[in-house]
């Protein structure tokens, strides 16, 4: 049995389910709403945001451009997208158990490891497809509506300006990193789906874990600080690192640079480790699992 056949079959099942398209619809609707809001009221919103900056600097050009819009949208959406990922990944095994099709699948001459790998690969492809869809809406449509220019990112203590010629590759890298973050969520949800016989459990459990870990991240207490580096949620927003540009001794930004690349790569490695860990654990448990559904 070819591995690609299993992936084909799993993708076919995913994309024939109506629930799959909820995520695509939700992303398009949310992004569309944000774009509509900024298209209507963006000028005044930006003026308010730039008030303190305008006192000291002469800011000109298309500040509210497509690149900035994509940044704002990504910041907003990447917190909620895990739910949309879990909707499908959390259903991969538990959904089959719930329908009773798992036992029928496993009477076929496909090894359990192949089955797990095939199902995980299909859910990973769905995750990537959702992120590409998000990129099209967040970046592509935003550029069409708001145009392009240098990108100003306002932070609590500083402002980062990224030249328009230096932005696009950063988005490619940011989306690649976001893919790792979302694949971690997908792997977690997939792993949890081994233990349930309906998809609500894994979806709720995934979201609960993300919420608890995010709260732990937010609390600046010594006991939690010890575990923070090991929580995958700590590293999920590492994509923002690609928009921190290195400055040279003349206070000029270095085109194509990332201020703290090792930190970004470390976060990526932690996420990758989580994905592999969840996948291997899924394979080991599924291989020994009695199919009683």
């Amino acid at each position, binding site marked *: 049995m070819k591995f690609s*056949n299993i992936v084909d079959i799993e993708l076919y*099942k995913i994309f*024939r389910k109506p629930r799959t398209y909820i995520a695509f619809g939700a992303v398009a609707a949310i992004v569309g709403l944000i774009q509509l809001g900024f298209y209507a009221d963006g000028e005044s919103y930006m003026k308010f945001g730039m008030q303190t900056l305008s006192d000291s600097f002469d800011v000109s050009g298309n500040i509210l451009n497509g690149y900035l819009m994509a940044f704002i949208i990504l910041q907003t959406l990447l917190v909620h997208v895990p739910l949309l990922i879990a909707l499908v990944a959390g259903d991969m095994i538990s959904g089959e158990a719930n329908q009773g099709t798992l036992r*029928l699948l496993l009477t076929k001459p496909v090894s359990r490891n192949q089955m797990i790998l095939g199902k995980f690969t299909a859910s990973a492809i769905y995750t990537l497809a959702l992120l590409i869809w998000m990129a099209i809406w967040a970046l592509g449509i935003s550029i069409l509506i708001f145009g392009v220019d240098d990108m100003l990112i306002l932070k609590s203590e500083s402002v980062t300006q990224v030249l328009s010629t230096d932005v696009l590759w950063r988005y490619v890298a940011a989306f690649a990193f976001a893919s790792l973050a979302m694949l971690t969520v997908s792997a977690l949800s997939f792993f949890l789906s081994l233990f349930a016989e309906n998809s609500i459990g894994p979806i709720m459990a995934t979201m609960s874990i993300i919420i608890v870990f995010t709260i732990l991240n937010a609390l600046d207490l010594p006991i939690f600080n010890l575990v923070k580096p090991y929580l995958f949620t700590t590293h999920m927003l590492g994509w923002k690192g690609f928009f921190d540009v290195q400055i040279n001794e003349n206070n000029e930004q270095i085109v194509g640079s990332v201020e703290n690349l090792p930190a970004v790569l470390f976060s990526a490695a932690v996420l990758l480790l989580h994905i592999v860990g969840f996948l291997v654990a899924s394979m080991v448990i599924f291989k020994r699992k009695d199919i009683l559904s």
Partner: protein
Amino acid sequence: MLLQVNNLSKHFGDFVAVDDLSFSVKEGEVYGFLGQNGAGKSTTIRMLLSLIKPTQGEINIFGFSIDKHREKILERVGAVVERPDLYRYLTGYENLNIFAKLSGKKISKQDVMRCLGVVGLDKRAHDHVRVYSQGMKQRLGIAVALVHDPSLIILDEPTNGLDPQGIADIRNLILKLSREQNKTVLVSSHLLSEIEQVADSMLIINKGKKVVEGNVRELLNPEVVQLEIIATSNEQAMEAIATSAWAGGLKVSAARHIVLETSASSVPELTKYLVEHNIGVLSLRAVNSLEAYFLSLTSGNEV
């Protein structure tokens, strides 16, 4: 032997679902696997298909251990375990096509449609499974088991939820597969009458243990019958039988009826004997002794 099971057991914590079960299935035969609900049939079938791991014992199919050669064996096995649950959001054709692809063999669209025709679903092939009746789902499940032309077919309670016509269709299909295509079929049921009509050999299990195994015709020997007698006075009838040649066959006497095991040919003589003793026979029902035994299992009163 095409299928050989030795000392198979399965424990779920303290609960023993299957207890030291051994049996064998010959190539080309229809093998009935009989037991009341909860007797351990489905657990055994799940172990045969490697869906659950035995606590102990071994299973060899086509001469290979299922533990070591799972995929190789499953290429030649078609199975329906309990309800044939399928993807409700897909059509019958799409469901069958998915499982055909997973069988590892090259199966054309025409073959898939032909298989749907065998179970009488070709005209409804492109309807969603969610609109199928229970009988149609059951038939589609059997098509999933047959689509890759397996040598061994395992059907777990295939007539559950079917109307009489559906039951007859499945029965005929099993006989056709065995007689015309020389397939080996293992079929489980909780109804002796179903097994009796299709199986060459059978195994009865109760509480996970083997009760009896053998040739169906020999086991269901019509010469030995169990009689349920209701007389005008059961008390007098009991006394009369106790002093007769039938005394040894007396099994149970109850206020409502007497149970007596005897040869079928002696039934008219017994009736005459009771009438001669001025005992009227209100009702006399003869059942095969194995059937009686099985009925006692299902009703919870062992004879």
